[in-house]
């Protein structure tokens, strides 16, 4: 039981002294329900204590970076969705904004707000899925159904907006593919308004549940130094007490125009990571609410009415959905290079693009947040108990397609 786990002195000294045990190597995965994808963990155990753990990755390597060499930027764009399928608006944003910076394309304000709303909604869906599966790892099954129920509502919004539930392919260089459908903002507002109740409901089931507390409090403590040294970013880093959120520190899109807090933890255990993510969902709701109120032009129905009435102000730059309409088939960004990092639900998502004046990128590098977050697992697990492995692994929220790209 996990309660006793916290009482065992680190490194399990007494086990080694008393009993002469051989190390045992346990292979977890590649196909294992708790690894959320295809991950192999070669675990060396001394009794119940993990002596060493070696993650083996690459099973989902789909050569995303190589694919960019044979496709024009526009052709390449749909495949970005597949880099990280739970929050692909962020990948698209990183890609599109880098190209926009290289080509110096202007992005209208309305587009920036649409992007901000979709990204924050996407953050919620991603955290919800994490919430469901994390508790499933700990043995609780009903939270998963609840989380999926709410996620479904947001996915329905995405479907109305982009036509797809997960592979959106919605952002374009300097704009978005199409304006919001009429009445979409009201639907968003409805979902956002009823969401806090749902979050309270989850908290009622989970946050103070003694079994959950025993399995998370004090388990898998990640110090801030360890997190930074291993390149851990995002909620997992903030749970360790470092207040680092790119939306606040290096605002992109229009994040500097909305007001929100950055939740931080203090100990860096699994429970803190849970709490930080939970709090982040509430902050995202805050951002969305402000963005709906502030979006230039308001709902599309209103804007269309103004345009139909011949209102010239309804056609100004900031209300368009394209800064400059470019021909996507032959689009050639100028020569240059740029690197963007954005705050994805899992941490720093980086996209580094070198263009050479041809329709293709010379080089595209993806920095998946999960890639670095997963690499902390080995140092973190050293000397901890084997039954906590899945709780800890689940709490750092790794998504394997992003690790392997």
């Amino acid at each position, binding site marked *: 039981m996990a309660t006793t786990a916290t009482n065992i002195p680190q490194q399990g000294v007494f086990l080694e002294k008393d009993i002469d045990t051989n190390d045992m190597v346990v292979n977890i995965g590649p196909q294992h329900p708790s690894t959320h994808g295809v991950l192999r963990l070669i675990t060396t155990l001394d009794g119940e204590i993990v002596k060493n753990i070696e993650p083996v990755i690459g099973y989902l390597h789909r050569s995303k970076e190589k694919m960019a060499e044979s496709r*024009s930027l526009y052709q390449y764009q*749909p495949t970005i969705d597949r880099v990280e399928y739970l929050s692909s608006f962020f990948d698209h944003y990183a890609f599109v904004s880098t190209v926009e910076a290289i080509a110096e394309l202007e992005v209208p304000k309305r587009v920036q707000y649409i992007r901000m709303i979709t990204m924050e909604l996407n953050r919620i869906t991603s955290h919800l899925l994490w919430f469901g599966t994390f508790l499933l790892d700990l043995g609780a099954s009903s939270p998963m159904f609840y989380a999926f129920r709410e996620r479904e509502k947001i996915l329905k919004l995405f479907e109305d907006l982009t*036509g797809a539930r997960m592979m959106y392919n919605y952002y374009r260089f300097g704009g978005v593919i199409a304006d919001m459908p009429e009445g979409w903002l009201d639907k968003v507002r409805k979902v956002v308004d009823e969401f806090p109740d749902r979050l309270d409901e989850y908290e009622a089931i989970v946050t103070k549940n003694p079994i959950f507390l025993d399995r998370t409090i004090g388990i898998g403590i990640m110090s801030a130094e360890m997190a930074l040294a291993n390149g851990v970013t995002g909620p997992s880093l903030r749970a360790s007490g470092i207040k680092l959120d790119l939306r606040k520190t290096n605002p992109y899109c229009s994040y500097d125009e909305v007001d929100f807090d950055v939740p931080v933890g203090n100990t860096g255990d699994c429970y803190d990571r849970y709490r930080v993510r939970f709090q982040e969902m509430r902050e995202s709701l805050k951002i969305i609410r402000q963005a709906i109120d502030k979006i230039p032009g308001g709902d599309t129905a209103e804007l269309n009415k103004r345009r139909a009435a011949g209102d010239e102000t309804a056609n100004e730059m900031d209300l368009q959905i394209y800064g400059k309409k470019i021909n996507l088939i032959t689009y050639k960004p100028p020569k240059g290079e740029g690197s963007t990092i954005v705050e994805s639900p899992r941490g720093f998502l980086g996209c580094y693009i070198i263009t050479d004046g041809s329709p293709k990128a010379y080089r595209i590098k993806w920095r998946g947040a999960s890639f670095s977050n997963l690499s902390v697992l080995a140092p973190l697990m050293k000397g901890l108990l084997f039954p906590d492995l899945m709780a800890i692994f689940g709490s750092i929220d790794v998504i394997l397609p992003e690790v392997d790209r």
Partner: protein
Amino acid sequence: MSVLDNKVVSGVVEVGRGLATVAKHLFRPPVTLEYPEVMPDLSDRFHGRLSLLTKSGGEDLCIGCQACARVCPCGDLIQIEMHRDEQKVPVIDRFTIDLGRCIFCGNCTEVCPVDCIKMQDDFELAEYSREALVLDKYALSLSGEESDEYRVRHGLEKHVE
């Protein structure tokens, strides 16, 4: 000992609270659908099966410009062969789409200059063989009335004649 007492008490209370929340859900209407009988309500922009719209009279709308084939991320899954007749009117000889390799990204629908290739809200595409997923022009084309209806529904009136 009192710590344990507290823990037990709070534990029972918290588990009870959780169970009460779960029990509340018994009285909520279900959110799931009985799928084959009840179809989901899909949006207008849904990325489903590809199809070719035709003119109101049923003639080909496609001008064979190959734009869709060029922007497709999956290589040569759209294949078009065309020639021009004496009046330089494009005639499409062959138009096939391999839906088995399509990732339903919508790139092709975005660039089509005459709004010919479009996506329907049909997502039940299972077939018994891979070959059956390679659709030719006749399988892809909608009739004139269907095309008109699609155009009206999606506000693409510019090609209605």
